């Protein structure tokens, strides 16, 4: 009997234990198999952390390695309001001086507030994460750390319960923290501002955290965004209870790849010279705007590009539509500078020679129902004289001789009506209407620079083509891309676009352009003491609502030197100068100022025979006294 009872009890116990083990086994399968994914994710969230590594944005350098734009490491100071409790005033008092903010502002930021948005949803200003200040320098952040570590709350913490002691400890160590950030700075301030451009900050949500990065908005910053930006890195790792990284448990660790440095063809010294001279011209002639460009005609490299007024990219409030880069964005009627296109075309096609004579009709020439005028009454003028005196009627007659198709083809081949392809944003094509849209008078108007719209860069490129034996070069602003250590990634080589005119025609054209910078020409003020200058003036009346307006002009001078072995081609254009308006009078001296200083800086050898556009008497005087200036 007792034996049976024992067996029954044993079976009962066995059954009970079996059921218990079965339950535990099921639980084990449930946890390890059925809910494995969910629970392993939860466990990972407790310890795993993913860190985003922002790449350093590349620098923008001039041709000699001078920094035009760079990024410096700064901190974004953040706070966790849930760890601050009611101690906002104490914290604000400690850190406000280093954030350049008022204590009241900081208290407001650190106080959690609950409200409702437009949709009626409950929203907070950030219970665990608020940004207190951006672009905080490293030094200021170290001061903040010290201030937070030494915070005093006026209580004897040794006698507080452990929970309160823990609260104060985490407040000191974790309530205020910093995130790495970058600040784009421009050490030169306004120097080459429109070429370099300016940035803005954009934020991306990565794993629930807003990550800011710099995005170029203008100039090279915009055009070379992908090369400058670099590639972000990341690290997947685990942390301990104190949120310290466990380096041994690092899983993925991919370093950020810094952005490449962009080296420009600009020379900071030349750029400075041009900005300096144009600033003086702004004061002297009070134009609405003035632009200056310096180019190497043989390569198309741009050494300086200035458009005043300009802005300081360090101060975003100085950026306005008025400070755009007018060199590439604005189109104007070129005026007499466009005569180089028609005359060089006629010389190249053999329709005329420099010595051919044209009747300039004593200042009045009726054509296609319109009367064209010269600023002086000229009779018979040779082609050379037409350039020297800038005769509209002479140029119109050469244009008529060249014919519509010839004129259009040469204008197109010189690069008008199309973008040059320079690496700058907002480049305009200009306007060169197809022949089918021309009026009858267009054939006479276009040769004198009316009825066609060009950018300053197109006009300079055309002049540089004449200086370069007829070869039109693509304007270059980017010289190379390089890594931070200086190793070259990509070199940008000068590119020939096409030969527009023959070398012989370009030499004849240069001979004609040399006469412009003489006493008989229109730009004597542009003559240099030690170099022969070739150039052309332009004074274009501005049109408003389809009507030419009296007293509003675009004045220009584009020239190059030494004329027979051109090193630099320089353009100066003023929009609506108030003191004087003839291109030769207002822009010629500015050209001379730029050319003299650039020649000295770039060590351009003086003409060995000392042939200049300056008359012999003056040249001899300058030989005796090198500091003598031509009036």
């Amino acid at each position: 009997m007792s034996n049976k009872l024992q067996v029954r009890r044993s079976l009962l116990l066995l059954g009970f234990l079996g059921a218990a083990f079965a339950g535990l086994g099921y639980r084990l399968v449930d946890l390890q198999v059925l809910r494995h994914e969910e629970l392993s994710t939860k466990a990972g969230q407790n310890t795993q952390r993913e860190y985003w590594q922002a790449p350093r944005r590349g620098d923008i350098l001039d041709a000699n390695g001078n920094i035009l734009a760079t990024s410096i490491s700064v901190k974004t100071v953040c706070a966790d309001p849930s760890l601050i409790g009611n101690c906002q005033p104490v914290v604000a008092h400690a850190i406000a001086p280093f954030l350049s903010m008022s204590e009241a502002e900081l208290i407001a930021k650190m106080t959690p507030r609950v409200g409702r948005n437009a949709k009626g949803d409950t929203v907070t200003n950030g219970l665990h994460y608020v940004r207190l200040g951006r672009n905080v320098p490293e030094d200021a952040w170290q001061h903040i750390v010290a201030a937070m570590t030494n915070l005093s709350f006026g209580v004897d913490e040794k006698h507080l319960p452990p929970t309160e002691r823990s609260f104060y400890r985490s407040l000191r160590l974790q309530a205020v923290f910093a995130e790495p950030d970058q600040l784009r700075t421009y050490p030169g301030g306004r120097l080459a501002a429109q070429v370099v451009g300016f940035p803005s900050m954009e934020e991306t949500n990565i794993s629930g955290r807003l990550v800011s990065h710099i995005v170029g908005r203008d100039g090279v910053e915009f055009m070379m965004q992908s090369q400058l930006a670099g590639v972000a890195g990341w690290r997947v790792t685990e942390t301990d209870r104190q949120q310290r990284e466990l380096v041994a448990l690092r899983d993925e660790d991919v370093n950020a790849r810094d952005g490449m440095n962009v080296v420009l063809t600009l020379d900071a010294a030349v750029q400075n010279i041009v900005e300096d001279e144009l600033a003086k011209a702004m004061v002297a002639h009070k134009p609405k705007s003035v632009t200056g460009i310096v180019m190497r005609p043989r390569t198309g490299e741009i050494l300086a590009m200035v458009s005043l007024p300009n802005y300081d990219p360090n101060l975003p409030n100085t950026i306005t539509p008025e400070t755009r880069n007018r060199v590439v964005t604005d189109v104007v009627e070129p005026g007499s500078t466009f005569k180089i296109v028609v005359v060089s075309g006629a010389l190249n096609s053999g329709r005329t020679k420099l010595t051919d004579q044209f009747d300039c009709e004593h200042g009045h020439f009726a054509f296609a129902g319109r009367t064209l005028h010269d600023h002086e009454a000229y009779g018979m003028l040779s082609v050379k004289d037409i350039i020297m005196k800038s005769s509209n009627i002479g140029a119109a007659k050469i244009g008529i001789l060249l014919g519509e198709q010839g004129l259009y083809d040469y204008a197109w081949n010189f690069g008008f009506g199309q973008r040059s392809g320079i690496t700058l944003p907002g480049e305009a094509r200009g306007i060169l209407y197809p022949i089918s849209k021309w009026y009858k008078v267009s054939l006479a108007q276009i040769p004198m620079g009316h009825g066609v719209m060009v950018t300053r860069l197109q006009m300079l490129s055309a002049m540089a083509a004449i200086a370069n034996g007829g070869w039109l070069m693509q304007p270059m602003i980017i010289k190379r891309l390089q890594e931070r250590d200086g190793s070259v990634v990509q070199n940008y080589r000068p590119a020939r676009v096409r030969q527009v005119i023959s070398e012989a025609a370009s030499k004849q054209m240069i001979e004609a352009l040399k006469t412009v910078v003489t006493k008989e020409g229109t730009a004597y003020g542009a003559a240099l003491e030690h170099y022969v200058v070739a150039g052309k003036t332009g004074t274009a009346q501005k049109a408003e609502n389809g009507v030419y307006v009296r007293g509003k002009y675009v004045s220009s001078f584009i020239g190059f030197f030494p004329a027979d072995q051109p090193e630099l081609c320089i353009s100066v254009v003023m929009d609506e100068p108030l003191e004087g308006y003839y291109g030769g009078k207002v822009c010629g001296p500015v050209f001379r100022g730029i050319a003299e200083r650039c020649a000295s800086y770039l060590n351009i050898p003086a003409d060995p025979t000392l042939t200049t556009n300056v008359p012999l008497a003056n040249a001899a005087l300058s030989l005796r006294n090198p500091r003598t200036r031509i009036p």
Partner: protein
Amino acid sequence: MAKNRKNLSAGVRFGPVLKVVLLGGLFCVAGVGYVWQKSEIARLSQQIREREKRLVQLKDDNKRLADQISILHSPPRLDLRAKELNLGLSPALPLQVVRLVEPTGQWSRLPALPRSGSRP
């Protein structure tokens, strides 16, 4: 046939004791080694973190100082300083520049080096 244990001498048998001690020691060493290894990992991990931070900081400092040098050397700044200090400096005029012609074809006339001369 196995010996009867009761007939063996009553002396201490070192073999098993030694085995136990060795085994115990082995476990102890393994345990201590494991803990030491973990603590070393934690210590080195801390060092790596600190040095990584330091490296980043040094790179930042290096970049900042290199930038400062570059900015101080930049022509616009030098020009501005020269003007501020009123040093009376002005660019050399082309006629003030003396150009030396490269002495082409002169090298052949230089005396030959003595054969016994030491070489670097």
